[in-house]
């Protein structure tokens, strides 16, 4: 493969990153051609038409617009091609589909905290199985960070106040850099970690070894009661609030006539900004939990509600 000709270039580790490398190669070839042509002409003219050199300089005033029209269209068409290519790969990369294995990522000054659905949590590291798409649900506790894995040619900003989804997949076991790419204050350059890709069997071993006493969803359940959510959403409560069992993943009709799918984002928003999307035929009674719950707690709550998906209300 062409990649081996460039000694410092680390091979790409997944389908998508292979596509990005190909695109990079395409861009390099295209610009090498343009640069080559330009430098050749510059050299040629500089040598041939240097002052004092006797050479043919006739017809120099005669000029038509053909040239300009020519190179304007040529560069435009070339650009259009690159644009389409780049855009299609971009859509591939950022199109998240499967949530076979969700991992929650909380970024904060200056560390990455990752949590597996079973409650296994890590600091500045993320273990994943190879050849399987892993969906990251990322949130930031403070400022904007950016989750960057050079080996996957992949990054995504982690912006406080919203969840960001990113699907990653690694094809080869190994340790890879994880950087914070968005400047986030004093120890920005210390906010680095590693992605540890393992064979699926090793990975499940690792998961079982790390399994915590109480899985995240259970902790979420405890919080659900502690914070008083169950007071309204629980069975037999006097306040009329929508039941949450079986909610996750279903469409929810809203009071403004539209409807949304109850996904992570929706649940998070409902906890933080309950008035922005009121469920049809309910009063907007719920208080905001903005500032009262941390990102870690939010994740647990969301997971708890998610774990109710299978139950009947």
């Amino acid at each position, binding site marked *: 493969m062409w990649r081996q000709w460039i000694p*410092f*270039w*680390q091979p790409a580790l997944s389908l998508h990153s292979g596509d990005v490398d190909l695109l*990079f190669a395409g*861009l390099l070839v295209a*610009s090498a051609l*343009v*640069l080559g042509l*330009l430098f050749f*002409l*510059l050299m040629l*003219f*500089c040598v041939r*038409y240097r*002052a*004092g050199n006797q050479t043919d*300089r*006739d*017809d*120099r*005033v005669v*000029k038509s617009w053909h*040239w*300009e029209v020519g*190179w304007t269209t040529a*560069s435009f068409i070339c*650009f259009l091609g*690159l*644009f389409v*290519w*780049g*855009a299609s790969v*971009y*859509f591939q*990369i*950022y199109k998240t589909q499967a949530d076979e294995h969700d991992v929650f990522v909380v970024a904060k*000054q200056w560390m990455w905290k990752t949590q597996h659905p079973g409650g296994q949590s890590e600091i500045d590291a993320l273990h994943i199985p190879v050849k399987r798409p892993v969906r990251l649900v990322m949130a930031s506790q*403070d*400022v*904007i960070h950016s989750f*960057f894995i*050079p080996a996957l*040619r*992949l*990054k*995504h*900003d982690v*912006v*406080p*106040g919203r969840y*960001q989804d990113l699907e990653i997949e690694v094809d080869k076991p190994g340790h890879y850099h994880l950087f*914070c*790419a*968005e*400047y986030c*204050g004093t120890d920005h*350059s210390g906010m680095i970690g590693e992605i540890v890709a393992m064979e699926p069997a090793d990975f499940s071993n690792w998961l079982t070894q790390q399994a915590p006493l109480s899985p995240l969803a259970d902790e979420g359940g405890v919080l659900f009661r502690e914070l008083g959510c169950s007071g309204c959403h629980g069975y037999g409560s006097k306040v009329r609030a929508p039941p949450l069992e079986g909610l996750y993943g279903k469409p929810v009709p809203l009071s403004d006539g539209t409807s949304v799918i109850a996904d992570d984002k929706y649940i998070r928003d409902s906890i933080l*900004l309950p008035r922005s999307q009121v469920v049809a035929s309910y009063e907007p009674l719920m208080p905001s939990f*903005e*500032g009262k719950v941390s990102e870690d707690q939010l994740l647990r709550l969301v997971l708890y509600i998610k774990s109710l998906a299978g139950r009947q209300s």
Partner: protein
Amino acid sequence: MSEKNYLTTDYTLKSWFLTTDHKRIAILYFASLIFFFFIGGAAATAIRIELATPQADLVSSDIYNRLFTMHGIIMVWFFLIPSIPNTLGNFIVPLMIGARDLAFPRLNLMSWYIFMLGGCTTLFAIFAGGVDTGWTFYTPFSTLYSNSYVIVAAAGVFIAGFSSILTGLNFIVTIHRLRAPGLTWYRLPLFLWSLYATSVILVLATPVLAITLILIATERFFGVGIFDPRIGGDPLLFQHLFWFYSHPAVYIMILPGMGVINELVSCYSRKQVFGYKFVAWASLAIAAVGFLVWGHHMFVSGQSLVASLVFSFMSFIVAVPSAIKVFNWTATLHKGSIHFDAPMLYALAFIGLFTIGGLTGLFLACLAFDVHATDTYFVVAHFHYIMVGGMVTAYFGGLHYWWPKMTGRHYSEYWARTAAVLIFFGFNLTFFPQFILGAEGMPRRYHVYPPEFQVWNVLSSGGAAILAVAYLMPLLYLGYSAFFGARASANPWNATGLEWQTSSPPPEFNFTTQPVVTRAPYQYNGDFQAEPQNA
């Protein structure tokens, strides 16, 4: 040579600090910019020394962050944006259009004072303790988390913005109203077209920056929740506002440079600029489309995929007029009679470096590749190729070209050429390795880095050492020439612009008789056998 010129009319300090002569104001700006350039350069030097090793050995991370912030803020707002417009532009514009001065001479002096006030405010922020937000001031870091002099620094930039707006207005009105008889739009030198386009951006975009900076201050003082997500604000709103100014601002930084290159290329190849009208309109096209591409700084921020698509497309479009210019400069050389004086060496360096910067800009406009490259050293390399390889090189070229006009003296051609060549090599050695670093994934604004990136960082730091020496050289030989250089004639390069029709240095009111224009610009014809007179 006993006739009084603008330098010799009066020698008092008052005559300098209260002058309304655009030429003297240009000199005031020139001196201030040299000062700021060296402060920014000193920070760059410290950064590069620190980065020569992967560990933190020279400075702590807090100091490092303050260094690159100071480097960025000073270089962008107190060097790049004012450089060509306020020094060369101020000096040359009225001369080029055959006017006695700019349209509003006092406003011009006032913008220098405002500029200095902004500069001093920013310097105060830096020396009182510094700012650690990066020149981009991204929220919510700048509004909630940074405990540094954010507001003072932002105030400095805010104040300097008014200077930009006033200068822009002054140029627009001057170019509209004060052209000499016969100087129609299509007879304007291309330098003026590009300054005109620049001024339009200055006037339209700078207010957005001002608003953005006010919002930061409001948020920091009162926590009103513009950018703070916990109370309903949006951190990305800041990025939209900021880049709505700052993307056009990079054209403020490069368009005047392109304008200078037109003058140089045609003068030293003794030929009309190829495709005058295309080049002229390309400037305005860049200015206009430049307003529609700000979102390409946010491809990984989580903005909608469709928005990214549109911004990527517009970014490719804005590259077309830039490509036109590069091709037209090259075509200008064809069948010319090329003289390799120092300004021409700078111009040729500009074409090469700007093209590399522009092409790598396409890499970044290309969505999927940007995902990998953004916020890495690839971006650092790219914008230095445009801003330093482009703008600073053009500035040096223009400075050498008009130096005899400004001072009435010649510099040492030998040293000038040596410096030009050294800058070219030093520059490439400094910044080319950064493309590789970025492609390998080294993030920018990193103070310590994994050891495998060291080789390229050492090369880059070595290049920076050469570059630092090369940038100091003009200070010496130009400074020497200002006092001891050989006297220059009115038109040492045999150039065609109106500015060469008056003595060097020009008299206080520029022309003894009102010039009248009867020809298109750049009528260099047929003298490719004879050397031009280098007095």
